[in-house]
C-alpha cells in the first residue's frame, strides 16, 4: 500500500508460489477518500481505505486464494475484518525501492494487535483475527529455503511505480 500526497492511495497484490515465483498480480488505480469519508473515519481513514477498500478489492479480484496475505502496511490488516483471508503484517524493515516526501506508507490507528515470531520473521495481526502461530508456522514451512519474505515487497513496489509512473515522478 502506498499513499501519494496528490493522487491518493493505491495498492498492489502479488501472489507467489513457494519458490517466490509470481502467479498473479493486481493493483488498484489511485483513489482518494471523499470529504465525507475523511470526516467520518477521522484518524481511521487509512484503515478504511487500505483495508476495507483497496485490500478487499484486490483480494476479491484475484482468482487464486492464498494461504496467507502478508502486508507491509498495518492499515491493510483491516482486510481481515471484511474478508476471510488470513492477513499479517511483516514487522521488518523493508527495502523500499522508491519513496519520496509525497509517496509513503499509509498510517494506521493503533489496533489491538497480536505478535508472532516465526522463523526469523516478526509478524503482527489484528487481535481478533484467526491467525495463530501454529498456522503461520505451517504455512511458512512450505516455503523454499531461499525464499526471502521481504524480497517480493520490492517487486510489488516496483510494479506499482511501473503501473503508476506519475507516482515515480513525485
Amino acid at each position, binding site marked *: 500500500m502506498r499513499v501519494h500526497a496528490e493522487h491518493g492511495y493505491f495498492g498492489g497484490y502479488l501472489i507467489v508460489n513457494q*519458490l517466490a515465483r509470481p502467479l498473479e498480480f493486481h493493483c488498484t488505480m489511485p483513489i482518494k477518500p471523499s470529504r465525507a469519508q475523511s470526516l467520518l473515519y477521522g484518524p481511521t481513514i487509512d484503515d478504511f481505505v487500505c483495508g476495507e477498500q483497496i485490500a478487499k478489492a484486490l483480494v476479491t479480484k484475484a482468482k487464486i486464494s492464498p494461504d496467507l496475505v502478508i502486508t507491509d502496511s498495518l492499515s491493510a490488516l483491516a482486510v481481515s475484518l471484511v474478508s476471510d483471508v488470513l492477513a499479517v503484517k511483516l514487522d521488518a524493515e523493508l527495502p523500499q525501492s522508491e519513496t519520496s516526501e509525497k509517496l509513503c506508507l499509509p498510517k494506521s490507528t493503533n489496533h489491538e494487535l497480536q505478535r508472532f515470531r516465526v522463523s526469523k520473521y516478526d509478524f503482527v495481526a489484528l487481535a481478533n483475527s484467526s491467525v495463530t502461530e501454529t498456522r503461520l508456522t505451517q504455512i511458512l514451512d512450505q516455503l523454499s529455503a531461499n525464499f526471502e519474505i521481504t524480497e517480493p515487497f520490492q517487486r510489488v513496489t516496483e510494479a506499482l511505480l511501473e503501473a503508476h509512473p506519475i507516482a515515480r515522478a513525485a
Partner: protein
Amino acid sequence: MKPFTRIGDHGLNEQHAQGWAGIEFADYPRLAIHSDRLPGAVGPGTTALPVEFYATGWQGMLDRSFVVDVATQAPESLDVQVIPIRLQSKLPKTIGFTFPEASDFLPPATKLETTADKSQNRMDNVITNDDADQESKNKSKRKWTRIKPPGDLVKLEDRLYFVLQPPLESLLSSAKLEFPFEPFPYQFEGIAFLFPRELAILADEMGLGKTMQAITTVRMLLLAGQLRNVLMVCPKPLVTNWVREFKTWAPEIPVTVIEGDSVKRNWIWGQHTAPVRIANYELLMRDRAILDDPDIHFDLVILDEAQRIKNRNSTTAQIVRALPRSRSWALTGTPIENSVEDLINIFEFLQPGYLRDDMTLKAIGQATRDYILRRTKDKVLTEMPPKMFRDEELDLTPSQYDSYRSAEDDGVVQLAGMGEMLTIQHVFELVLRLKQICNFDPSTGSSCKLERLEADMEEIAASGHKAIVFSQWVETLDRIAQPLQRFGPMEYHGRVPSKKRDGVIKQFKEDPSKHLILMSYGAGSVGLNLQFCQYVFLFDRWWNPAVEDQAVNRAHRIGAAGPVTVTRMMAANTIEQRIHNVLEEKRALFNQLFADVDAPRNAGLSQQEIFGLFNLTTPRKKAA
C-alpha cells in the same frame, strides 16, 4: 441556550431588582457593589456581596439583609435536521494479470480462463520443483539482482512480467543451474541486462567475463523455451575457446561447430534443432549462399568481438547484417576503436538506421543508453590485483642507431620528394621499416629490447613466474625465441595451426619449465585466458591502444594470480616514442572531453597524424 441567573432584592420593586441584577448603576449613583463572584454562585440567604452604604437618612430598609433568589430557565428546544450522506460503497478499480504458472493453483473452472499470452513459456521451465532445502535457511542477506524491463518494451503487462520476476540469484538457485564458481554480482547484472533484451551490446572491458554472461543468459533462455537455436559468430581462433567455455558454464547444452567441407557445413546449417551453433566470421563469407536459404532463421545471433563489423561496407558486416534472426546481441570490449562510427556500424547489425552519422555524441549516448552495458575493471573489480605499466625507453644499440638514422633520414627525404604521389601507404612502409629496426638491427641482429627482455626473464623465471611477449611480427617472435630457449618459449601466432593452439596454451600453463609465450597481437590479443601470467611485455607497439589493452588483459583478468606488470618497450628518440606521445596526448584529451561517454578514448592515429610523424603534410587531393 445557557440558563441565566437573576439576582433580586427582596422588598425592592422589580425595577430595582433588575437594576441590581443588571448592574445598571447609572440609576443608583450612590450604591456601588463590588463582587469577585459570579452572580450565579450566590445562594439564597447569603450576603456574600460586600456592600458599602452611604447614609442618606431616609431608607431604613437599607439595613435589611439581601435575599437572593436563583431561578433557572431551560433553553428553547430546536428542531434537528438530518442530512443523509451517501458513502462510497464501490470498491476501487483494479488492473492485473495472471502468470502462466498460476494454472496449477487455480480451481478447475477458472483454469480455462487463463490466457495463453506470449509470455506463457518465458520462464516456466527455468524453475523446476524446488528441493532447494539443501541451502541453509540462515543464508546471509545479499544484494538481489533484478531483471528490469528494457526501455523499448511498451506494453505494461510485458514490463510488469519482468518487474515481478524473482531476483536472478533466486531464479538460478531454484533452477538448479550449477556454476563452476559463484558469479560476481556485476556478472549477475550483466545476465539480468541481456535476459529481457532483443537488442543488446555487452561492452564490458576485457577480462570481466562477457563470455560467461552471454552463455549463462543463453542457458536460461534455452531452458525457458524462449530460444531454440542460437548462432554464435566469433573470430576463427576463438571457436575452440567458446566450445570450452560452453562446456564449463553450460555443460548440458549441445554445441555444434560449423566446420568441415561444404557438404558437411551445408548439413549443419540445415540442422534447425541444434540449440547452439558456432561459426566464424571467415566461414560466413564462404557460406553466404547457404545463408540465403529462407528456411534458415535464428532465435538469437551473438557476435563476439563485434568490432569486426565496424566497417559498414565490408563483406563480413553485410553478411552478418543479413542473418535472419529475432534477437541480436553484440559482445565487444572495444565498441569504439577509432571513432564513434564504429559504434554506429555495430548498431547497424542491431537495428539498422537507429543511429545516424550526423548525430551528436550526446545524442548517440542517450539513444544507446538502454542497449549498451559497459563496465570497467576499475569500477567493478575493486579487489582485483593492480595492473602496473612500465614504459621502458631504451637506447638503441650503436648498430641499431646507425641503421635507424640512415633509414629515417633517407626515407623522409624520399617521401618529401614524392610530392602529390605520396600516399599513406608510403608513410606506413617507412614507419614499419623503422619499427623493425627498433626491434632488431637488420645487419647485426643486435637489439636493445631483447637485451632488456632477457634480463627481465632471468628474474621472472627464477621466481617461477610466467610472461607473455607480444609483437606485431612473427619474424620478430622467431628472433626472440632463439636466444631465450632456456626459458622454454612457446609460440602462439598465425603460423601455429588452429588445432595445435589449445595444446600450446595447455602446455604453457601446466609445464613449469615454460616461462614465456610469444604471441602476435593478431592471434593472441583476444579471447584467451592467461591469468596465470604476471608479466606482459609489449616488444613493439600496436597502432591502437585498444588492441594493446586487449593483449594486456589476457593476463589481467578475473582470477589473476597477482599484480600484472606490463612493460611497454620503446626505443628512445625514435618513431616509436613519437607514436606513443601522440597516442597518449589523444588519450588524455579524450579522457578530459568524454570522461562519461567512454567513447573515443581508444582511438588510433588518423591519417593526418601518421603523416605528422615525419613532419609531412597530408597531400591535397586533386579536384575531380
